């Protein structure tokens, strides 16, 4: 213990003697650790944002879109021809046990008027389950019910953006708005969801009961038809299974021969999002790896300086060995020196990384996330760099021949 303490003091003093050199050597580690911290923070921030977006979209979500069509040689996209019915939705709900909720919906652009304000938005007609499926809570009021659906009552739920544009500070609950000139009672306001992954304002919409929408808003070109069916599976594991089952069930119900393509499309949104999440993970890994390289370069800087230091202090080492220093005393002395360099560098680097990330986040609006694990990891890594790159010079010092070392000029 006494020897360890003595070695520590010797190392600290040696570093103090060459302040400029020690500082420059540390700079390599400071930049390396700082870069690792900043890159991991940016990477995990991006990952976290994507994860939040997945959660806001609703988990285990499948969207069945009605089919594409060809008309006069022109092919139209999914959802342009209503091939899905409310009955399809009920069949999915009734026949597939792995399905938790099903919500058929139809949507269309509407003009909505309150008092002397008006706003153009999207109205989605659906069943009450749609809010559960999309994991969309209400900030006030109530959801519409099966009775509203059965009775096609003229009630609506408003998104945050719509409320802001129509009601200047007035509580919208219970107010009457006109949607396509039809009076609707506002029964609930949706919680804000913010922008989607694609930059779309998710709060710029309203919900109405599907039946009401079909009767009053969307026109009744094809009665009983819906544009899409949102399906929530019971768990992420059964997503694929449910997707296949929906395909099978709908092909059967739509009597599609095996040689023809589906007249509907099943989209696994969670899968798309998890791909995005994976690429974010790869990105943060890559950023971390690049930053680690600078840490290694910093380590090589330490090794370089330690080698110079050992050569410079050959005579000192000779004296120490002559008066009874054992190999491990010398090894420890130089190892502690390089470790102190890298640990102090690492500590400053963590501070610099955190401050740098905060500045970066302020100017670029990037989401960033610090984790204790990343900071500890960087700290651990920097001390390992100290040991690893300090070992060779330290060992070299400990193996010096005292006679030659004492003669060294």
């Amino acid at each position, binding site marked *: 213990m*006494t*020897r360890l303490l003595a070695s520590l003091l010797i190392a600290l003093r040696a570093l103090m003697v060459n302040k400029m050199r020690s500082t420059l050597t540390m700079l390599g580690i400071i930049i390396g650790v700082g870069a690792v911290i900043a890159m991991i923070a940016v990477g995990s921030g991006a990952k976290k944002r994507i994860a939040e977006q997945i959660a806001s979209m609703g988990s285990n979500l499948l969207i069945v879109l009605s089919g594409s069509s060809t008309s006069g040689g022109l092919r139209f996209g999914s959802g342009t021809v209503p091939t899905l019915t409310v009955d399809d939705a009920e069949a999915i709900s009734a026949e597939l046990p792995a399905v938790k909720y099903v919500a058929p919906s139809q949507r269309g652009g509407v003009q909505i008027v309150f008092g002397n304000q008006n706003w153009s938005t999207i109205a989605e007609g659906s069943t009450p389950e749609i809010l559960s499926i999309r994991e969309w809570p209400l900030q006030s009021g109530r959801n519409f019910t099966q009775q509203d659906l059965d009775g096609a009552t003229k009630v609506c739920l408003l998104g945050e953006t719509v409320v802001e544009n129509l009601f200047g500070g007035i509580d919208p609950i219970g107010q009457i708005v006109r949607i396509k000139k039809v009076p609707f009672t506002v029964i609930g306001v949706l919680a804000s969801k913010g922008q989607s992954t694609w930059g779309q304002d998710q709060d710029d919409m309203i919900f109405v009961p599907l039946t009401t929408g079909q009767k009053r808003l969307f026109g009744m070109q094809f009665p009983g038809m819906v544009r899409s069916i949102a399906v929530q599976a019971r768990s992420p594991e059964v997503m694929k299974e449910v997707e296949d089952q929906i395909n099978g069930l709908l092909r059967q119900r739509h009597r599609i021969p095996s040689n023809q393509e589906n007249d509907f499309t099943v989209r696994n949104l969670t899968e798309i999002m998890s791909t995005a999440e994976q690429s974010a993970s790869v990105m943060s890994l890559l950023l971390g790896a690049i930053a680690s390289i600078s840490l290694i370069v910093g380590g090589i800087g330490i090794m370089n300086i330690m080698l110079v230091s050992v050569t410079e202090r050959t005579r000192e080492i*000779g004296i120490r060995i002559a*008066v009874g220093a054992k190999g491990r005393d010398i090894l420890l002395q130089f190892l502690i020196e390089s470790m102190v360099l890298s640990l102090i560098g690492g500590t400053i680097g963590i501070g610099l990384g955190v401050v740098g990330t905060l500045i970066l986040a302020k100017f670029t609006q990037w989401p960033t996330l610090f984790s204790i694990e990343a900071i500890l990891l960087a700290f651990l890594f920097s001390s390992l760099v100290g040991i690893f790159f300090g070992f060779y010079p330290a060992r070299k010092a400990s193996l010096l021949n005292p006679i030659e070392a004492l003669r060294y000029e």
Partner: protein
Amino acid sequence: MDSLIQVQDLVKVYSLGEVEVRALQGVSLSIDQGEFVAIMGASGSGKSTFMNILGFLDQPTSGQYLLENINGENLSRDELAEIRNRKIGFVFQGFNLLSRTAALENVELPLVYAGTSASKRKEMAEKALSAVGLKGREHHHPNQLSGGEQQRVAIARALVNQPSILLADEPTGNLDSKTSEEIMGIFQRLNREMGITIIMITHEPDIASFAKRVIHFRDGKIVDDHRNSAQSLAGGGK
């Protein structure tokens, strides 16, 4: 009783590439506790090689060297370091003090490697420094001390562990004659009052005349080994 140092047929051969240099060619002698020996010889006579072997810094090619019946032949580097630490004090021509380090800490150095506690170290180092007349200069750095004072710090460092022998390699080589005499006076006093065994290399007869016994080396062999009579002893033996 066995002698403190017993050397038997010591041979040391260096091979410098193709050429073999026979630095020691069969040296035998014994030195008793309390002796003050000067080893003389021209450069290349093998006296430095002999000193390195005595100090367990080097191993002989053949022959035997016993210090207090300890044979260093089959010992590891670390075991040799421990023997040097406990049994041998070195004084070098170039002082070999750690620069930028206070005198006291220089003297403490062997105790650090012996694992002595900090308070004990300080006490012992202060005692050693006052034994060489440097009381009050404990916190001076080597560059603030004269050559003679630096060499006295080195002597204090060599003594601090209470070693069996003190090995001095041309201790006055870098000093003027007046300072050299002071250093020799310290050696004589340590030898006489504390009974410390001193073996000293020098090529100056004036300096050798301070020792009780003078051994001459030539071409790796002892050619002369005589004792100075009390009358001829420089410094008047005081």
